[in-house]
């Protein structure tokens, strides 16, 4: 049996107000270590909301998210921040790099925030990541001196800097051209192949098809799951299915 890296149990996320709205409505999901899962669905279906819950950026109204077996529902915001820093790496649709910092400084930012490495080690690790993503020559450039694809690769390098177990990406290719999209997806695929867990939200069915598993969300619920290269299946006992795969 594969080791579960990320598990959602009965996740519910509601927006309370004059008109309440349920974004995520009772989702159970297990993602194995080293698995590449794509979350798809129409706009407003709750796929990004689910991703934010899985990455501990948001807290559920009901249910729990377990990161590497650790329940997180009762953790304080500070403890959740610590888990985000060390166990999760985020990539967003827009690069969200700090504009005044160079590529290398942006990549080393999470390492410096964690404070577990020496300056030299952080510098070397940052360069290593940028080199592996083909950005060695752009280490000292600021985001406004890079192309869209390069910025997104820097963002991926930043997500990887603390060697997180899980990478969550919210439409990382949404603002990229075809070539860059191919590059970024290839990188994410390589990350998963290297043993890390990758969960990606995407609109692109062709890219989703390259994931190990595709989870289709409709109205905040899992509508169907599709194993890589398989035909769509009804979404029943997804966690068990993922655990067995």
């Amino acid at each position, binding site marked *: 049996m594969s080791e579960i890296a990320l598990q959602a149990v009965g996740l519910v996320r509601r927006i309370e107000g004059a008109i309440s709205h349920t974004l995520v409505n009772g989702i159970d999901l297990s993602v194995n270590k080293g698995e590449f899962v794509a979350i798809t669905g129409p706009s407003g279906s709750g796929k990004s909301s689910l991703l934010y819950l899985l990455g501990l950026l948001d807290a559920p109204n009901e249910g729990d998210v377990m990161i590497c077996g650790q329940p997180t529902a009762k953790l304080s915001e500070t403890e959740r921040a610590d888990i985000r820093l*060390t166990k999760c790496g985020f990539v967003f649709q827009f690069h969200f790099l700090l504009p005044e910092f160079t590529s290398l400084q942006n990549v080393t930012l999470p390492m410096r*925030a964690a404070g577990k490495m020496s300056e030299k080690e952080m510098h070397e690790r940052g360069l290593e990541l940028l080199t592996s993503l083909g950005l060695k020559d752009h280490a000292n450039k600021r985001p406004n001196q890079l192309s869209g694809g390069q910025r997104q690769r820097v963002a991926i390098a930043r997500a990887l800097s603390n060697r997180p177990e899980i990478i969550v990406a919210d439409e990382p290719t949404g603002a990229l051209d075809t070539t860059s999209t191919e590059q970024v997806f290839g990188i994410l695929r390589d990350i998963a192949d290297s043993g890390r867990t990758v969960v990606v939200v995407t609109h692109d069915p062709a890219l989703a098809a390259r994931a190990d598993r595709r989870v289709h969300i409709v109205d905040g619920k899992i509508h169907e799951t599709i194993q890589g290269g398989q035909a769509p299946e009804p979404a029943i006992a997804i966690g068990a299915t993922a655990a067995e795969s």
Partner: protein
Amino acid sequence: MTTKLLFDIAWTHVTARVRQTLVGMAGVSMGVGFTIMMAGLMEGSQIDFLRQLVDTMPHITIQDERRSVPTQPADQEYGAVQMSNVTNLNNRPGIKYPESVMASLRSWLPGDVTPSVRTTAIIDHGGGRIGVTLTGIDPRQEPRVSKLASQMREGQIADLSRAPNAIIIGEALAQKLAVKPGNTVILIGGKGTEVTSSVVGLFRSGMKRVDEGQIYGLTGFAQIMMGQSGIVNELRLRLNDPLIAQQVATQVEAQTGYKSVSWQEANADLLSTFAVRDFIVLTVMGAMLLTSSFATYNIISTITHEKRQDIAIMKSLGMREYSVRRIFIIESAIIGTVGILFGWILGYLLCYGWSHITIYNMLTGANVPLQIYYSPMHYIVAGGISLLCCTGAAFFPARKATRVHPVEIIRGAS
């Protein structure tokens, strides 16, 4: 979270907005600089005034009177007594055995003491009459208890010994009477004694009240004018530290039984005015420093507003809310610290410049420079309060900004 990282982020924020940052720093500098200048000027003028006051008068004056009415024999005899029309015993005025009292005081007093005779007199000269206070002094002992010797403008204290009826008068009084050293005036004592006195010297204390109403003569001369031979009705004390005069006066009074008035007590109304002035000045300076921090508040508010996305990203990467908040506090501290450093320089230059400004003194007719008191405490207090105001000004916008939920910003940006 490493402070260096937070400092680096803060530094990039403030250096990326040079004009705004400079405006903020200038605000702090102005506040600190003018506060230091005001403090130096206020304290300088106050110290100068007090110095003049203390130099002009004895630190403690022992008078031949009691603070309270002496206990009557009937009080000592009966538990409750009603008395009316009590007639005082016609005791001889003056301090009893002044030499013994002085010897006793000199054994422990941190300073010196000298006897004198104080009486009132009228100067009759040129058809005009002016009431004055005549103090009979010993010219040899006087320099130990007063600054009269250094205040002499013409003649010397020792010139009093040239004639038994010689007097030294204030320069302002001399102008009023149109007399010069060598001239004579008629002095009329309390009991109608008329003596022709020769003016042998002029002094200037800088205080109008003294320069127009105080004259000095020999002890014996004052006794004649008072009509009490051999009397000493005042002991004047000068202390090494004038600030302890109040405590010493209490001690002296307890020992001698005579009313001992310190210079603080004699000028209590003036000193209480100083206290009110100090309070007003401190309030104004506090307001200046607080107002100068508003510029910092504006800058931090602007930065936090512009950097909402960065804040969201830093929080999403796992930086704690407290750490992100510290970034803006550090930014404010950077603006404040640099502003304070320039404020110190500005404050010093202002003090230096103002100390070269002279004001015409109508009494003395001289151009007197503004008195500035230089104290490191002014710099420390102004800097400390300013830094506190700056960081306080940053705290609220920083707290508001860092409480933003990252998902809201990320969704908005997406």
